Each structure stands twice: as C-alpha cells, then as structure tokens.
C-alpha cells in the first residue's frame, strides 16, 4: 500500500519519458545515491571499500559495456576483458608519457583507445553472427593480451608486462585512500551509467535492439546495420576500457595483461546473464552477485566446516556453483535478477494483498 501509483498522472511526454516514472522509485533512487555517496564512505571499513564496493562498481561498468553489446545489440562477445586491458594500458601510457595529463582525460582517452580496437574487432560482425562472432571475439581476447605482453612499449619495458598505475591527482587533490578511490570510482560509474541508460532508451538503443531482434527488418526501415553494430562495439568497448582503467587505478594498483584473461571475460558474461541481459540495473546486480558469491561461500564454509578449508575445495565449489547458477538462471529466469527485482516490485504494488 505504500508502493502505489495512484494519483500520479503523467501529463506530458516528458514526464512519461523519465527513467523513474513512479515517485516512490525516484525517491528510492535518490536515497540510494545519497547512501552510497555520503553514508558509505563515512562509515564503511577499509575491507568493504577496497575489496567489495570498489570492484563491484568497476565490474558493473564492464558489465554495462558487455550488456550494451550483447544484451541490447545482440552481438555475443567473449573478449570483454581484453578491451578492459586496452583501457588500462591506454590510460597508463597517456599518464606516463604526457606531462600534466589530467586523470579523467587519461581515463577517457584509454576508453577511446579501447573503442577504436573494439571497432576493428567488430568489423567481422557485419558478415558473421551468433557464436561465429563469439569465436571472432576470442581472437580479440587472445591477440590483445599477447600483444600487450610482447610489445614492451605498452608496459614501459617492464618484465612480463606488469604495470603499476600512477597516483590519481585531480586538481591537486590526491585520491589515495580507499575512501577516495571508492568515491572517484562511484562518481565515474554513476555518470557513465546514467549516460548508458539514456542511450539505451533513445533512438540509438532502439536501433541496437532492432538489429538484435531482426536485422533484415531493421534495414528495411532505414537502420544501417553496419553503422549500428560498429556503434555498439565502440560504446561497449569504451565502457569496458574505462572499467579496465579504473581496475588498475582504483582497485588493484598493479596490473598485467594476463590478468585480463578469458576467465575474466567469462566472469563478466556471467554477470550479465545472472544480473539480467539487456538491463542496466541488471549489470549492477550481476556484478554484486559475482563479487559477493566467493566471499559468501567462504564465510559459509568456514562456519559449517570450521577451521581450515582446503583451498581446492573452495575453488571447486566456486566452479560448480558458478556453472550451476548460470544454467539455473538461463532455464528458470533468463532475464536474470533484474527481472526478479521487477517481479518483486510488482508484488509490492499489491502488498498487502496477494493479487
């Protein structure tokens, strides 16, 4: 009875087009934003900030990127981690080689590098579809990682391509503590998520979905499949690139090309499957789920088995649960957690009545 739309009429198209059309949703959203921007940095401990919240934000961004490509535009990609790598190494090199390069600009440039590479590896999508395209993205994944290791220029001639990211300084203000790194990540992710949400409900987003659903029909109404698909690759890779840069600058501090491997690409794919393919909010839910699951498993095993838990058992259990969950979600709720959330809200509208 609290979650009712009664009395809320949309009197203009402008109102109908808002992201949150129900007032309760809007209020809830601002509350959540306030919580994450103000309350969390003040009260959360270091562990939560460093090991949970920051990576969840970063992976959400990468998941949004993959969602744009695979969820909205329908082009399956198994190479998201490689684009993250391009963003990370791109930003690093811009910061390194150009004096006085502002951090935000470096991140954007890193993202643009990733976008450029994304367009190149997206060209095959004009002629091939489905899992053939997935194999092409595998080519991107392996080639990019190999190139970043083999050409020492990328890692400033360090061994095996390891780079240590520079300090983040914006307008003389150093972002060195976990709270500050969390906040800068939050700010960047929030802005980019908003832009993504706008994109997907605009003409661009509709063109993507049209190409996903039936590209012949899309062409007949004047949508150019080539441009649309390459746009999707570019935007998606940009997002993954920025996520990769943040991965290096605000999360790990030290990264290497091998760290952006196929396993990571699969992880991101799992995030969007579990979170909800084709949903911006689903990207956040999926990322949170995948990051929290191993931690949760660890805690659960410690409390049930007590004492030392063999690492191999934990690792195997993780594999089994990940794999099982993917299959479970694909069978039971292919639209993922986002859909479950929506169903929950629907029920909430009727609460306390059952139907």
């Amino acid at each position, binding site marked *: 009875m609290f979650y009712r739309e009664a009395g809320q009429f949309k009197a203009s198209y402008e109102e109908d087009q808002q992201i949150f059309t129900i007032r309760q949703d809007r209020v809830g959203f601002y509350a959540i934003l306030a919580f994450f921007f103000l309350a969390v940095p003040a009260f959360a401990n270091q562990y939560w900030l460093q090991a949970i919240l920051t990576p969840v934000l970063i992976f959400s961004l990468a998941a949004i990127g993959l969602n744009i490509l695979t969820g909205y535009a*329908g082009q*399956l990609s198994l190479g998201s981690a490689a684009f993250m790598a391009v963003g990370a190494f791109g930003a690093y090199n811009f910061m390194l080689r150009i004096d006085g390069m502002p951090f935000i600009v470096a991140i954007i440039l890193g993202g643009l590098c990733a976008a450029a590479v994304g367009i190149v590896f997206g060209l*095959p999508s004009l*002629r*091939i579809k*489905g*899992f*053939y395209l*997935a*194999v*092409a993205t*595998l*080519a991107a994944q*392996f*080639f990019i*990682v*190999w190139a970043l*290791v*083999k*050409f020492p220029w990328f890692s400033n001639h360090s061994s095996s391509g390891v780079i240590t990211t520079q300090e983040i300084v914006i307008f003389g203000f150093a972002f060195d503590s976990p709270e500050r790194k969390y906040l800068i990540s939050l700010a960047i992710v929030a802005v980019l998520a908003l832009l993504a949400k706008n994109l997907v409900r605009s003409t661009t987003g509709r063109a993507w979905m049209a190409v996903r659903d039936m590209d*012949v029909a899309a062409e007949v109404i004047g949508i150019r499949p080539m441009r649309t698909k390459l746009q999707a690759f570019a935007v998606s890779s940009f997002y993954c690139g920025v996520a990769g840069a943040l991965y290096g600058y605000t999360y790990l501090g030290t990264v290497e090309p091998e760290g952006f491997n*196929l396993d990571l690409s*699969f992880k991101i*794919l*799992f995030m969007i*499957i579990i979170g909800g393919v084709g949903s911006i909010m689903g990207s956040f839910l999926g990322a949170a789920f995948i990051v929290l699951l191993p931690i949760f498993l660890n805690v659960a095993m410690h409390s049930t088995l007590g004492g030392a838990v063999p690492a*191999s*058992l934990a*690792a*195997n*259990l*993780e*594999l*089994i*649960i*990940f*794999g*099982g*969950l*993917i*299959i479970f979600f*694909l*069978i039971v709720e*292919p639209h993922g957690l986002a859909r479950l959330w929506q169903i929950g809200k629907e029920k909430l509208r009727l609460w306390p009545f059952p139907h």
Partner: protein
Amino acid sequence: MQFFFEVLIGGLLSGVLYALVALGFVLIYKASGVFNFAQGAMVFFAALTFVGFTEVLPAWFGLEEGSKLVFALAFVLALAAMVVLGIATEKIVLRRLVNQPHITLFMATIGLTYLVEGIAQGIWGANVRGLDLGIADEPIGWIMDSANILVSKFDVFAASVAGVLVVSLALFFQFTRVGRALRAVADDHQAALSIGIPLQHIWAIVWGVAGFVALVAGLIWGSRNGVQFALTFTALKALPVLILGGFTSVPGAILGGLIIGSTEKLAEVYIGPFVGGGIESWFPYILALGFLLVRPEGLFGERHIDRV
C-alpha cells in the same frame, strides 16, 4: 628442408588432436543443433575419470597396477561415466532450454563447462596427472634413419586412431539406420518426432558416441600433455577447427584440424621469431576469422539461407 617437414608433420599431428576434440562438437551439433562449448571440459572429465579409476581400481579390487585389466576396466567405467554425464546434460540442461535461441543454449554450455570442471576436480582432485598409454613418444627408427626426420611413434598412433574413428563415424552417419535418424534429428526435431524417430534414444546414442570420442581424445591429449585443468581451454582451439571445417562435417573436422595444427606450428616457427613468439595463442583464431569473412560455412559445412 627437413626441418620444415618436421615442423609440418608435428603440426599435422597436433592438428589431429584438435580434430579429435572437434569431432565431439560435430557429433553433438549434428544431432541436437547445440554447440557444446563444454566439450573441452568433457574431454578433461573423461581423461580425469579414466586416470582416477586406474588409480583406485587396484586398491578396490586388489588388481595389479598398470595391468591391461585395470586399463580395460577403467576405460569401460570412464565411458559409462561419460554416457551418464551426457544423458544428464541432455535431460537436466538441454531439454529445459529447447525453445530458446541458440545463444542461450551456447551460454548454458559455457556454464556447463565450469560445472563439469568443478565436478571432475571435486571427485578426483586437482593434481596434474600423467597418463601412460604404453606407447612411447620416441622417434620412429626407420624414418629417422632414412630421411632424418623426427616422427614420433606416439603421434602416428594418435593419427591412426583418429583416422579410424573418423572413417567409422563417417560411415556410421552415412550408411546406418541410426546414422540417418541422427541426421534427421539434427535437421528438424519436430519432423523427426512426427515420423516416429525416438528422440530420447537417439540423444542417448549421440551423447554416448560423443562421450566415447571425448574419452579417446582425452586419453590421447592426457598422454601428450598430462591431465590437467588447462586441457579445458586448450580444447578451445577446436573452435577454429570447426569454423574451417564446417560445424556439421566429420571429415571437415579432421581437415580443419590438420590445417589449424600445421599452420599454427609453421606460423610459430617461421613468423614467430619476428614478433617475439607466442603466436600460437591467437593465430588459429585470426585464421578462422579470415575464413569466416570469406567462407562462413567452412570447407564442408552447409550454407545457411535466411528466408525473408
């Protein structure tokens, strides 16, 4: 010149290994239209199960370690395990996803990969194991003596096994009643059902055969490289093989495997030094990519025509 031949032959023979894994893919794709990304994991599972059994059987039944009996028993048990795995996969996963788009099925098999790996290691442990098939990895004497080219006995054995397998499978699909039924099922499930083909039996047979192929592939791979987790992802190389050969062609899988194996090795040896080596990790994929742009259905695959 002989160095070139050595590399070429080495490449061809490693291509045979890829082809063996690709064969499993082709079988399942032909019969159910599902692209089983988990094939590599299944090869790993097969190999690990076999090795696991060779280790525990002597203890359970007081048999002599390394004996032919243990081998045979382990093989049979591993095969049984593969069939069970296949049927379970079909019942629990694939049947529930029958009407979903192919992408969904594909993603489910990615999940399956992780699941199978986890189960395999959970049961048998994650240590790297050796697998001894009793065939030495040493050069064949007379070739070495006459032409001074290194050709390993083991590789030739693997190639012959693969050859026999391919020929029998090709014959099976072409000439037997079950083979024809399989092809019908691959084409159109509903139609096959409506002419009375028992889908469940067919799928059981397919997964059984695919399991057998996976086991053979697993034994040979495991012998070559040891049975370890990495096996799952080495099997990814089978994907470019399939693209070259066509997803539905048994001879295509072999030909594709040979091409990928040889070009990969040759590229590594002859182009590699100019760029620092390690080309093998991506060369087959780029090659496959090129193929996709020029001939998307592969050398022997079927052309897909979209009706507007």
